[in-house]
């Protein structure tokens, strides 16, 4: 692998609450190469959003670290350099609350430009117009509108324009299309992929939609209750899913054709509820729902094993070359 642009090492984030410690992210490791799109998939309580928030600086890790171009960045945004804040940007899930309803789109897009002293006055207006054009929103029409008078898809495009305003190299996409209709989603994903090629961006794509990842991600990682259960390149991942949770996820996807149906590992094998991250089951946290459970699963947490180049899994079914999980 070429020099990774982003690396998580033992990244951990716990939140102490009155009811107990929320183990949101628990000792995860992953690497991303420049130009990658890593799809981080999980259900509620998986920790995928918290991971994204740590990368972008909303939280600082409890332990472990995040490295950007080899340099440690595990801190909140307030402590990060301005340059870093320019390089790593985020697009949030809910466009309704990520755009200030009382400001015009021009003002919203002007903020990052002003904060980083990238442009002012007439040049600022020119750059904002260029940004809007890049996301296919005609400036004359949109500059002075307020977010509430435009649709969800358009709001998200403004959010994307805002993220790109500082010419970043790394963008975190936190479920950018989950709240949108499928036809609008297609437009936005297309836009994102096009911009990625054009600007040489690396994406950390958080989602729960595996069909989307099949088509938009170069690598896929699955999280469950704060831990990574499997990572692989996309094609390999969908052809050879190893972890029982991955298989359960894949079997639950609502597909629209017989062809896709035949690609699913099985049908109707999902069972059980997701435990709360405050009460993580001992051993492998998935054991309470796992159809392939072994005796050791509720006692020992499995180790991460690389089954094939780039394909990593954490499960007692795949104990690794030593023959026993260490």
């Amino acid at each position, binding site marked *: 692998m070429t020099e990774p642009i982003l690396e998580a090492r033992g990244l951990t984030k716990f939140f102490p609450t009155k009811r107990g410690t929320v183990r949101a992210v628990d000792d995860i490791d992953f690497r991303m190469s420049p130009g990658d799109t890593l799809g981080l998939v999980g259900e509620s309580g998986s920790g995928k959003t918290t991971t994204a928030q740590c990368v972008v600086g909303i939280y600082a890790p409890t332990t472990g670290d995040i490295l950007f171009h080899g340099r440690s960045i595990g801190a909140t945004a307030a402590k990060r350099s301005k340059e870093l804040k320019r390089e790593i940007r985020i697009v949030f899930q809910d466009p309704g609350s990520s755009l200030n309803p009382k400001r015009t789109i021009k003002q919203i897009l002007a903020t*990052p430009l002003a904060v980083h002293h990238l442009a002012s006055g*007439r040049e600022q207006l020119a750059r904002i117009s260029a940004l809007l054009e890049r996301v296919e929103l005609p*400036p*004359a029409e949109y500059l002075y509108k307020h977010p509430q008078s435009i649709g969800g898809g358009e709001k998200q495009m403004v959010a994307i324009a*805002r993220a790109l305003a500082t010419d970043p190299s790394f963008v975190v996409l936190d479920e950018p299309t989950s709240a949108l209709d499928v036809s609008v989603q297609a437009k936005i994903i297309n836009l994102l992929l096009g911009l990625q090629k054009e600007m040489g961006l690396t994406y950390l794509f958080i989602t729960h939609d595996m069909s989307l990842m099949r088509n938009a991600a170069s690598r896929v990682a699955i999280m469950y209750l704060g831990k990574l259960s499997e990572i692989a390149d996309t094609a390999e991942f969908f052809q050879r899913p190893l972890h029982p949770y991955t298989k359960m996820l894949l079997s639950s996807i609502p597909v629209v054709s017989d062809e896709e149906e035949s690609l699913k590992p099985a049908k109707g094998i999902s069972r059980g509820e997701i435990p709360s991250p405050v009460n993580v089951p001992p051993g492998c946290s998935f054991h309470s729902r796992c159809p392939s459970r072994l005796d050791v699963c509720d006692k020992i947490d499995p180790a991460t094993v690389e089954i094939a180049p780039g394909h990593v899994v954490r499960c007692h079914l795949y104990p690794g070359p030593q023959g026993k999980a260490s």
Partner: protein
Amino acid sequence: MQDTTKANLLAAWRQRRRNLAHGWYKYSRNPLSVLGLVILVLVVFVAIFAPYIAPYPGHAKAYTNFRDASQAPSAQHFFGTDRIGRDIFSRTLFGYRFSLMIGAVVLGLGVAPGVVLGLIAGYRRGTWVEVVIMRVTDVFLAVPPLVLALAITAMLTPNLINQMMAIALVWWPWYSRLVFSLASSLRNEYFVKEAELTGASQRHILFREILPNCFAPIMTKMTLDMGLVILIESTLSFVGLGVQPPKPALGTMVAEGAKRLPAEWWSTIFPALAIVIVILAFNLIGDGLRDVFAVEDV
């Protein structure tokens, strides 16, 4: 490039006009709100042009004419005359000047610091900044507003300036608390997080991101408060701690006339009615503003 700039400005102006028209539509749904606005416009008009409208403008200053004293309402004196012969109608019109001016100044003085403190405390909730600001606010709020205003005015010489400062001092904590609760919930919004992640200064976040979302409740409260300020001013004047005679403050006029109820009812009732009308107008407007700002879902 010039064309697009012009086009942009035109678009901005059009959009703003559209927003205003929409706002007026929502406001005018309720006829009472429109009535309130009409009354206020009349009151303001009357207050501004009092020297030209009042039949006896001189009566608003030192003037005595015991021959015409204590006359019932008539064609020459619409509201009658008071105990020293001054035309009550003219004095009422001038009295509106004081009331409106005091309302505007007090709110101008009191709202701004309250809002700023509330913003800072709300955004820094959970830190010592919040604790200090909000506990001071609590102290001021613990004392009933009227009592506090009375106490302050009594300590200083009773005149217009001191009266206004006293009421302003009473008023700011309410805004501090209002904005505190707004700001502390708004700071969790994603657009605020986004501004923080971008690296925006705290000033930007407080005044450009959070404050615009507080305008609606602040404006509504200010409109309703105008009525209340006028009432408090009237009360202070009533007990002799406000505007001193011969200046025609409505409260003072009510106080003087009250001594001679029910025989010379006109010297109390008319100034009192004038107070009621202007307070009513502000309340109706405040209600109307609430409708305008209410989030609608279709």
